[in-house]
């Protein structure tokens, strides 16, 4: 994004020199300084922007900042739109959203996460902020609706949204209107009254019109300021004003037609030509106009037009850039098309050339396409692609694809592959294969098994030589990706290896990509060791290429693999190494950092160290969701649910899992631990095996399924549920099914090297024997599990099974008295019991909530902690992103459960019980 372009979009338009005071409108708008949304909705030329700038100038104080954003059609894409919004806000609140911005460049930008982070920062600013979105109709659409609605709902009271649009936007206006949170100014309000017309024409413009003249003009124009301005220009310096007015009034023509023609007729030939030739441009400056008109003096002409008020809108303070008022530009274009149709192509061509020379590819391409210069547009696109890819603006590339006919793309291998990248980034796979084959056709089999691009063969068109040399490797990588999507593992691995072999020596990124694709293929087919190797290569290469955030992302995968393999220490080391890497990056928190803490929390939890597990989750939360990958909100909640479960708060765990499901975002990795399976486990633990079995039925899971790695977790869950059923109602067939299933799961897990799963399976096998009354037979698998688990310090997998496991472990100890590990596990059971009693030494127990008759929910704990601060009710509600009513419901419930009836008493009791420490240092 060229900086100058961005600056013009953020520029707050200057207040016009002479304006008509319109107190009735200022009155309407003054309510807007407190309103959530101020909407100015009227067609073109009604003076929306002028009114806005006047109003903002009138309410300007030291404690009020304006963030202005002038929108264009190209801003429709959510990632682009929100990036600009945050950039605009930075003018009012320096540095806001700096951490969140990079998130908008990911494949599925987590808009709500980003907005939540920004809203938090807004809540903390002291100033009033007016966020102005001008020409909103250019971007309005369903894509932005959810994000905009979220923003509106959670706007802090001192932040105001102001929208100017030609069309009512797709927002919940009726709701806002009903709640009195909307201030509207519409066309009927904006029309100039006869008094205002008189003031404008006589006082501001300096004409000397009679009251009859005013009435006639007001009647004919209906108070439409654009028409009045045109009329004013026509009347200035004219001797026979009466004649003009009569002619104007008696004419049936569309008034803008009539008036613009009048205006144009009164310009010099030079100015007229200038206007017609430059009206195709979105933005104008001196040099650009010179290039397009073919005449010098553009800057001077623009300044003169500006002074004469001829519909030029300045876009910056230094008066370099302007644009025409939309209505005027449309008029001129119609005239141009009518009077000089053969000039149009050439004008676009000249504009395209100028933009290209001045380093602005997007408008250069737009004008090239408009000129019908497809070959040239294709050249420009090819050259623009690498930068756009770096900035993850694949959607822009995708947009250009439609402008370039297939026959042209076929001859351009680099362009074709660039489009392939854009298509796949948007999950579009149609046409990818054909384009890859077309590109490949230009590669010549070289020595060995490699391929070299033809040296300038007949017809091939390439502009970006460097990209051409990368092509052999890149094409294979996309073949691999395509094969992966199609589920063809052997083909995926074959192409990925070719990609690595054929990639350019310095092309670490392609090699990394190919390694990751292999890793995915291995993972999906259950070969975890190979997957780990592939991902490790990927990480190495990413690190060399400097893509550190991606290193963190891959670390999650690496640690996940190690955990499944039962190697908790190795998993932990992976996270620690990644955090070290992140620590070396100064000035910003590397994206993915929050996820490292979530991962470490899970490992600590497995080892029974709930204190550390909770601390890590707190740290992750402190850093903020925006410092994690897009899946962070979901991962955090899953980890927290596990903590709650370990504390015995099964209801709390379920709430969190439901939440996790709500915010779940898929990524490329197969979902081996789906939330519904996690839920089923908690349900089984609660004795709700019927609902858990419903889940199994929905998933089509049965004890006799063919076993695959991807469904292993789900199958182990099924075994648990069946066991829970037997424990509850003695249904023999369930027990048999469970045994049968486990007996098959075990060898599969052993063969796949998945020690983590093996331990769990053995524990369950042991329990099936125990519950069937055969204690001696139960000990075999249990001892095997303990032996596997001891080196890695597993605790939860045993302690989570409760009293049945406790008695089995006692049986083990009675046979092997010296086994310390088992003693430690038994002690961990005792800790669990202790937390169920009242605290003795005033230390907060692991879960103080358990000491209440009815424990507080997660949400209620959040509210309670905030009650212990100085925040008032509405502020607390805002912090939690709920309505004041919801917060009050929580508060009432908290008071009831704590047995109090005031905030102070609640806080005091909370401190007693250890929910809240007496001095918090958050």
């Amino acid at each position, binding site marked *: 994004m060229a900086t100058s372009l961005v600056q013009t979009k953020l520029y707050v338009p200057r207040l016009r020199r002479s304006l008509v005071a319109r107190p009735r409108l200022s009155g309407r708008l003054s309510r807007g300084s407190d309103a959530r949304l101020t909407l100015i909705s009227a067609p073109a030329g009604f003076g929306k922007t002028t009114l806005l700038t006047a109003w903002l100038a009138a309410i300007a104080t030291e404690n009020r900042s304006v963030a202005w954003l002038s929108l264009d059609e190209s801003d429709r894409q959510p990632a682009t739109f929100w990036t600009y919004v945050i950039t605009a806000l930075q003018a009012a609140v320096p540095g806001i959203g700096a951490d969140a911005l990079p998130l908008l460049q990911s494949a599925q930008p987590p808009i709500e996460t980003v907005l939540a982070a920004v809203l938090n920062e807004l809540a903390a600013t002291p100033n009033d902020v007016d966020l102005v979105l001008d020409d909103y109709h250019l971007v309005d659409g369903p894509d932005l609706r959810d994000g905009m609605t979220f923003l509106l709902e959670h706007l802090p009271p001192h932040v105001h949204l102001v929208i100017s649009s030609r069309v009512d936007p797709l927002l919940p206006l009726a709701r806002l209107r009903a709640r009195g949170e909307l201030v509207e100014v519409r066309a009927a309000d904006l029309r100039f009254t006869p008094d205002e017309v008189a003031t404008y024409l006589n006082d501001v413009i300096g004409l000397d019109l009679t009251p009859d003249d005013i009435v006639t003009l007001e009647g004919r124009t209906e108070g439409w300021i654009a028409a009045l301005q045109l009329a004013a220009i026509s009347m200035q310096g004219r001797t026979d004003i009466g004649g003009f007015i009569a002619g104007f009034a008696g004419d049936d023509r569309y008034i*803008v*037609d009539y008036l613009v023609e009048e205006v144009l007729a009164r310009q010099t030939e030079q100015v007229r030509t200038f206007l017609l030739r430059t009206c195709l441009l979105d933005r104008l400056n001196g040099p650009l106009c010179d290039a397009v008109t073919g005449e010098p003096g553009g800057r001077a002409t623009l300044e003169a037009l500006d002074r004469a008020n001829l519909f030029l809108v300045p876009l910056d303070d230094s008066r370099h850039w302007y644009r025409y008022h939309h209505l005027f530009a449309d008029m001129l274009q119609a005239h141009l098309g009518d009077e000089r149709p053969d000039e149009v192509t050439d004008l676009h061509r000249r504009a395209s050339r100028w933009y290209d020379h001045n380093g602005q590819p997007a408008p250069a391409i737009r004008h090239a396409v408009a000129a019908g210069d497809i070959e040239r547009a294709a050249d420009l696109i090819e050259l623009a692609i690498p930068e756009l890819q770096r900035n993850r603006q694949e959607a822009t590339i995708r947009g250009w694809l439609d402008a370039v006919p297939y026959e042209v793309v076929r001859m351009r291998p680099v362009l074709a592959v660039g489009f392939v990248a854009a298509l796949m980034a948007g999950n579009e796979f149609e046409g990818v294969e054909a384009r890859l084959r077309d590109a490949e056709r230009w590669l010549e089999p070289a020595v060995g098994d490699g391929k070299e691009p033809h040296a300038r063969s007949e017809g091939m068109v390439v502009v970006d030589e460097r990209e051409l040399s990368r092509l052999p490797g890149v094409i294979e990588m996309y073949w691999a990706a395509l094969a992966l999507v199609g589920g063809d593992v052997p083909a995926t691995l074959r192409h990925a290896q070719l990609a690595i072999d054929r990639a350019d020596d310095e092309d670490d990124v392609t090699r990394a990509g190919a390694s990751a694709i292999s890793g995915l293929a291995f993972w999906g087919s259950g070969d975890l060791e190979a997957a780990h190797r592939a991902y490790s290569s990927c990480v190495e290469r990413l690190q060399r290429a400097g893509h550190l955030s991606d290193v963190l992302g891959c670390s999650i995968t690496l640690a996940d693999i190690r955990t499944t393999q039962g190697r908790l220490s190795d998993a932990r080391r992976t996270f620690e190494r990644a955090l070290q890497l992140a620590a070396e990056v100064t000035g910003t928190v590397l994206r993915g950092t929050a996820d490292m803490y979530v991962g470490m929390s899970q490992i600590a939890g497995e080892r029974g160290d709930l204190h550390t597990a909770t601390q890590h989750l707190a740290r992750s939360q402190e850093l903020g969701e925006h410092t994690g990958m897009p899946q962070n909100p979901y991962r955090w909640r899953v980890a927290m649910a596990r903590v709650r479960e370990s504390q015995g708060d099964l209801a709390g765990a379920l709430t969190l899992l439901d939440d996790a499901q709500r915010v779940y975002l898929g990524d490329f990795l197969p979902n081996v631990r789906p939330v519904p399976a996690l839920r089923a486990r908690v349900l089984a633990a609660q004795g709700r095996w019927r609902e858990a079995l419903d889940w199994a039925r929905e998933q089509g899971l049965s004890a006799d399924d063919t076993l695959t790695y991807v469904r292993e977790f789900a199958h182990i869950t099924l075994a648990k549920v069946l066991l829970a059923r037997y424990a509850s109602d003695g249904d023999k067939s369930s027990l048999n099914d469970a045994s049968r299933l486990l007996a098959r799961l075990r060898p599969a897990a052993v063969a796949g090297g998945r020690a983590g799963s093996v331990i769990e399976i053995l524990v369950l096998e042991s329990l099936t024997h125990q519950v069937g009354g055969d204690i001696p037979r139960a000990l075999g698998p249990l001892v095997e599990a303990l032996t596997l688990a001891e080196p890695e310090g597993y605790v939860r997998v045993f302690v989570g099974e409760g009293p049945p496991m406790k008695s089995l472990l006692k049986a083990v100890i009675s046979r092997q008295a010296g086994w310390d590990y088992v003693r430690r596990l038994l002690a961990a059971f005792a800790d669990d019991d202790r937390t169920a009693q009242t605290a003795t030494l005033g230390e907060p127990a692991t879960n103080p909530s358990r000491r209440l008759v009815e424990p507080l929910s997660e949400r209620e704990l959040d509210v309670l902690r905030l009650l212990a601060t100085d925040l008032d009710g509405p502020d607390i509600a805002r912090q939690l992103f709920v309505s004041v009513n919801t917060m009050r419901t929580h508060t009432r419930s908290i008071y009831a459960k704590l047995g109090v009836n005031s905030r102070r008493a609640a806080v005091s009791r909370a401190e007693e019980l250890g929910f809240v420490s007496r001095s918090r240092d958050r």
Partner: protein
Amino acid sequence: MSQTAKRQQAPGGYRLRVGGHLDQRWSAWFDDLTLTRESDGTTSLSGAVTDQAELHGLLMKIRDLGITLISVDVIDPPDKATPITSG
């Protein structure tokens, strides 16, 4: 063709009536629709319209010129000008 069959086909032509008399040069701006200045002070823009996307594009152009939209009628594409159903 029965009445039901007609209704199931997407309209291939429209007549848009707007307030005021438009200059002839606007015909090209509005995708070469036939532009007729009516005696009641309105202007008709009529002709073939490929699909709904094109129709909404035309409506947007009308909106952006600040012209008042008076009516939208479905018509048979170019040759016939009799309206079949009301818009």
